[in-house]
Every structure is written in C-alpha cells, then in structure tokens.
C-alpha cells in the first residue's frame, strides 16, 4: 500500500472484504478448481446415492446375460446401459458402486497420511536437529519410489475391510506430507514472528499449532488433493492385483482386472472402469493444481 499520506499517524488502512470471501472467489474463478472440483463433487453424490442411481444390483449375476455390449451396439440388452461383464453383472451399476470404495479410500488414506505426515513434519521442522534427523530418512528413501510397489506387500496383510485398504496408500503417502511440512516449518521457524512468539513465552506446541501451522496450511491444501488421486490409484492397483477385497464388492481395479481377461470378448468391461479411474485421478490432480494456483497469489502479498 503506497499511501504517501500515511505519515500522519491517523491515516487509515484501506477497507477490505473478509479473507474467506476473497479466497473463495479466487478459488472459484480458477477453471481447474471449478471443473476438477465439480467432478469430484459429482462423484461424491454418486457414491452417496449409488443405491438410487444404479439401475441394477451390482452383485446380481445372470449368466444368461453375460458379456453384453453397451447400449447402441448390436445385441445390447435394454436396461444395461454400459453392458455386462462375463458373469452378467451390470457394468454401470458396478462402476457407480465402485465410486464408494474409491472415494472412501481417497479421503481416509489422504486424511491419515496428511495427519501423520503433518504432525511428524511439524516436529521435524521445528527441531531441525536431533528429532528432525530421526524422522527424515524414510522420506529420503521413498523419494525415488512410486507409491504402488511398496504398498503391495502391505496390501498382502490379512483382512479385506477398509483399514487394510487405506493403510497401504497412507503408509507411503505420509512421507510426501512430512517432507513438505518439514521444509515449510523450517522456513517459518526462523521468521521473526516465531521468535516473537518465543519471547512472549508461548509453549512450543502452541507455536507449532497456532502460529506456524496456519502459515503452512496453504501448501497442504493442494497436496491433500493430489494425495487423494494417488490413493485412488494405489487402491486400484491393489484390487487389480487381487490383494484387496473379494471380487464381489465392486472396485474399479477389480473390474479392470476382470476386464483385462475378457478384453477381446467385451472391451467395455475394461474400458469403462479405466476411463472413470483416469477421469477421477485427473480431476483430483486438476483440483490440487488449481487450488495451489488460486491460493498462492492471494497469500503472497
């Protein structure tokens, strides 16, 4: 604010709108956020209302109606809009129900990874020294590894319920958060406002949570979204490999595995879940990227 008449002590700062309103406006204006976020929102609605949206029971098998093509193709059965798989199950319904697994894993795994990674990152970044070194090697090691392979052995753990599905992506994903939070915390910890907080006598915990974390949080918002995309892929890989649930519960990965086997007889069984998976991950990526773009310039004042 180059207010040249600010020398008199009573010059007022300019009026402004609330920070939340400004951020919201910036976010909605960014196309990536609108499109990516919109798609995720759609998926969310699909996941919640799957029982009402799915035309058929996803588990119901009818061998008489096996491997039927989607609507518009010769031999399509009315009511099975995207065709059926070799066991006669409706592809569309299975894809819709598969959204539940995908999104649940996405949110829970990313949430877990975020919580663990942020907590450890804050601690590591503040100390920088002993505690920091103890925490850092795992992130350092996993820098070069894609999230899939290390998750596989973890996915082989017994149990086909939610915990066993969210643990693998979370167990690797936390390192991403940890690294970012640690670097941000270290940068913020040397700033004068943190020194000021120390001189006032705030406890370390207070400083980490109430002073530093709010300044680190913007970097995390985009990361969470990206992490969700990664979690979806990891879950798909695990179901693909058969390490996830029984093939009854519809998962996109499982559908892709199945579809791969009968790709010459029914390409749609492979293509449909693959496309939806691709679109979902793309949406998460775009959302994350868009959030980062929208929030950064607002913050960087």
């Amino acid at each position, binding site marked *: 604010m180059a*207010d040249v008449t600010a*020398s008199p002590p009573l010059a*007022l*700062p*300019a009026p402004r709108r609330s920070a939340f309103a400004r951020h919201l406006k910036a976010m909605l204006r960014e196309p990536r956020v609108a499109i990516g976020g919109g798609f995720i929102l759609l998926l969310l609605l699909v996941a919640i209302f799957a029982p009402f949206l799915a035309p058929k029971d996803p588990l119901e098998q009818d061998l008489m109606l096996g491997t039927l093509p989607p609507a518009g193709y010769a031999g399509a059965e009315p009511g099975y809009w995207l065709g059926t798989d070799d066991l006669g199950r409706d592809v569309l319904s299975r894809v819709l129900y598969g959204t539940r697994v995908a999104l649940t894993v996405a949110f829970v795994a990313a949430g877990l990874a975020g919580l663990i990674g942020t907590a450890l990152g804050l601690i590591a970044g503040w100390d920088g020294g002993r505690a920091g070194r103890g925490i850092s090697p795992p992130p350092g090691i996993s820098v070069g590894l894609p999230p899939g392979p290390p998750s596989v052995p973890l996915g082989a753990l017994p149990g086909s319920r939610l915990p066993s599905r969210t643990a693998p992506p979370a167990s690797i994903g936390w390192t991403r958060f940890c690294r970012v939070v640690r670097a941000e915390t270290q940068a913020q910890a040397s*700033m*004068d*406002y943190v020194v*000021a907080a120390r001189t006032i006598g705030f406890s370390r915990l207070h400083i980490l949570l109430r002073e530093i974390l*709010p300044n680190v949080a913007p970097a995390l918002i985009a990361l969470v979204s990206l992490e969700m995309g990664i979690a979806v892929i990891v879950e798909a890989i695990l179901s693909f490999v058969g390490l996830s649930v029984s093939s009854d519960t519809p998962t996109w990965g499982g559908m892709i595995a199945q579809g791969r086997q009968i790709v010459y007889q029914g390409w749609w069984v492979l293509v449909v879940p693959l496309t939806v998976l691709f679109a979902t991950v793309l949406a998460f990526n775009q959302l994350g990227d868009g959030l980062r773009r929208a929030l950064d310039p607002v913050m960087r004042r």
Partner: protein
Amino acid sequence: MNETLIDATGIEVTYGNGIKVLHGVDVSICRGETVGIVGESGSGKTTLGRALLRLVDVSAGSIRFDGRDITRLPEGEMRPLRRRIQMIFQDPMASLNPRHTIRRILSEPLKLHGLAKTAAETEARVAKMLERVSLPAVCLDRNPHELSGGQRQRVGIARAALLEPDFVLADEIVSGLDVSTQAQVLKLLKGLSADLGLSMAFISHDLSVIRAVCDRVYVMRFGKIEEEGACAEVFANPRSAYTRLLLDAIPLPEITPGWLDSKAGVEDAA
C-alpha cells in the same frame, strides 16, 4: 534507581558451525536506563541482544536478570520470566504473524500471562494501548500487511508494552523508516519507557539515533566491545579510533567543507 537489572559477563556465543560470534562481552543495564548497542554488520550486536533474551545459547559466561542467574535456565522455568523481558523487532512485517489479526496479536500474550482475566478486560487494555500508540481502532480487525510500515512498528511496540515488562530489547527498530516516521516511533518509545519505568537496550548502527535516545552506549566490533560509557562522554571524547571512525562517517545536514575529504573509513579489502 541504580539497581542493576541485567548483568551479563564474559558472554561468548559460538554457532553450530564453530564460528565464534561473541568473544567475551560484558554488559550491564540498570533499572530505568536506556543503553545503546552500536556496531556495523558482523559486530555481533544482534547476537548479543538475542543472547540476553536467551534466544540463542551462550557457550560461556553468565547472565543475571534481577539477581537471578538465567544463563542455563531450562525453557520451562524461563517462560514465566519472559513476560518481563520483551523484544521489538526490526521488520514488523516479519515479526507479526501474517495470518493473524492485530487484535489476536495483541490479545493472546495478555491472556497467556493472565494479565487480563476476562474478555472485556482484555479488550479494554488493548484499546487503551492502541490509543497510547496512536493507532486507530479499525486496525484491530486487519492483518499486518494492510497497515503501513510505521503502523506495524507501533503494533510491535504495543505488543511488547502490553505485557508491562521490566526490560525491552529494541533491535534496529527504526532502521527502515523515514525520518518523520522514525521521529514519531522514537518519541513514542521514549514516552512509553518513561511511563512504564522500562529499562531498554537499543541496538542500532545509527549513532545519531543512539545519541538522541540512550543514556549509555556500547560500541561493538567483531564480537567485542570497543568502547563503552555515558553517551555524552563517548560522543564528546571518543577514546577508541573505531568510535571516532563511526562518528566521522556520519554526514550532518549542514554543509561541512572538507568532510568528504577527511579521513575516511577502513579500506575494504577484497
């Protein structure tokens, strides 16, 4: 009023990479007096200030505050004392949390140290201090970046003063300010200091400011004290060649023929 509040002897500070920044410094500050610490970059003046506040670890020497040895006091015991030892920073943009409102920045310390029991009391104290530092009440709901440089600096002063400390360290607090803003801020600081009976350590590279604000002065160079004494004495009869150098380097706002040609500073080596 000659009771010693802060007594630091033989202070040595060594950074993690082995570089010694302070080589045995002795500083003492009495109640109610304002002491200047002047030096150029690399003199160690900032490190000395932070050592006094126990923000950096002292590798040798001792610091006594109000008779109590605080040199190696664990942080838990140091915290309650912190209310009495406050600091004002050079860059208020960096020393005020960009995500907090001014109200929060000023209120939280009061609540932490129990200086205000109710929300109403906190509000009242903050409002009174705002008026004292000539800041309009609308500032309370703003973030630091929405205020001017001079206003931010006054928030920094208000924050320190609200805790009614015994001692305040002012670290280059007017270095980036215009002459007129500087004068306002310093006048405010002097007034507050008199009202609250504060002891102050004023760190600066500007000898003219020190002369106008401080009773005594320590001249630092390369981590050591070159000269110390009452301002009147040191400025009138500087004993150290370095002090003379510093004084000579200041251009006064009246034409002094030959000033530019008189003995200049140290030749800066490559």
